[in-house]
């Protein structure tokens, strides 16, 4: 893809205009007629099947295959088409270099969207801005205001336990989480 196309695409993405986005199945999975695990199976998709993602409902993504079949699969079954280019986790050497190179102005990163976000350099040059903090504090709201917002939107608090860390995760029973 040309750089120009990338820029245009990124702009569209940022504006939320692109409806369908390409993705690959991360493993073999079944395409369901509805967004639930007991729905009818539309098709069995092998790993790395290319699909267009049309939307999402909870844990489920609605997709269309190249052959025109539509249905639902778990969002976690999908991976980006550029998975190979996906970043590895933050590495210590990079962190070190960045810590040690404070004040350096060169920036060798490849620009793909043309948008430069808040960077390490911005942080390293930051001076405290207490006046801006004061301004921010004026926008803080109290409990009642927040509760009023929830009520207007019919948001009802749910009683839910924290999810345990995976290593320490015991076999979960269904009553671990209590509905509110």
């Amino acid at each position, binding site marked *: 893809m040309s750089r120009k196309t990338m820029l245009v695409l990124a702009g569209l993405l940022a504006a939320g205009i692109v409806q369908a986005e390409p993705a690959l199945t991360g493993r073999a999975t079944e395409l369901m007629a509805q967004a639930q695990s007991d729905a009818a199976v539309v098709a069995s998709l092998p790993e790395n099947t290319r699909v267009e993602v049309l939307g999402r409902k909870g844990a489920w993504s609605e997709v269309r295959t190249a052959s025109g079949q539509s249905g639902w699969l778990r969002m976690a079954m999908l991976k980006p088409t550029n998975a190979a280019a996906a970043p590895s986790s933050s590495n210590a050497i990079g962190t070190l270099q960045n810590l040690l190179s404070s004040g350096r102005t060169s920036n060798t990163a490849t620009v793909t969207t043309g948008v430069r976000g808040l960077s390490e350099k911005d942080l390293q040059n930051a001076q405290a801005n207490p006046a801006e903090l004061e301004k921010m504090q004026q926008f803080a709201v109290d409990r009642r205001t927040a509760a009023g*917002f929830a009520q207007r939107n019919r948001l009802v608090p749910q009683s839910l336990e924290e999810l345990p860390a995976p290593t320490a995760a015991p076999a979960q029973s269904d009553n671990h989480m209590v509905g509110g």
Partner: protein
Amino acid sequence: MHKLARNVFKIAIAMSLAGAVTTAFAQLPFSIPGLGKAAEKVGNLNLGSLIGNLTAATREADEPEEIRLGQEFAATLLGAKPLVANPPLQRYINTLGRWLALQTERPDLPWTFGVLDDAGFNAFATPGGYIFVTRGLVERMRSEAELAGVLAHEIGHVLKKHHLRAVQKNAGFALIGDVLNAAGRGNPEARGALVNVGRKLYASGLDQGDEFEADRLGVVIAARGGFDPYGLPAVLQTLQAQSANDDSFSLLFKTHPAPAARIEMLDTLMKDRLDWLPAFTGKPLNARLAEFRR
């Protein structure tokens, strides 16, 4: 944070603290209560034993200290990027954020939320309940539930005191407490030292385990507030399709575990166990901005 990086971080903190304290001591003709003693100690030690001493000098920060440290860090982040000059947006993010914070065991911290005027994609939390998202992040959210998931992840960092503990672990709080006190009395060197600690902390990020913990909490807090629990996983899916070389995402990728690992952990834990919950996906941003215009 990787062990090697942590040591560098530790030295950076020790150096900035030692610098501030000794300079302050050298410049002032009198001893500041609480700071003078530390200055004498710091001034006579070489760096190696200083770090040992700082690590040993551990005491837990109390809540007022946690909040003051968070305010110092928040002022530093706001020094990097100011707020978006859009009062309805700032009122909205505070209302949504406060509702989520009310679903936690620390509902009465001085929770304060802000949208930074930055086109990049990132979010930050400072101790005591000061939370930031960038304008670029807000613009890229596909739903309010996604934004709720991000805010809830940051709220998780505050609840578990991740940033506070990172500072304590690396510098020990006894000395930080002294520097905080001196900064509170307007000592410019002490203030400068805190700014330095904040810069390093937010440029290098937290332990990966802290990020995974904040993800688990983010899902739960958003769901407790009535939002779709899959908002945060959906944001991580978006991130997975981004390149770390893209300058709008580079700082986030450098300071967080790979999105694929974060998605996998959440998927393993969530399975279909949260599917029974009500899943409000929210209202569009435009509607919210109109609603909060008054």
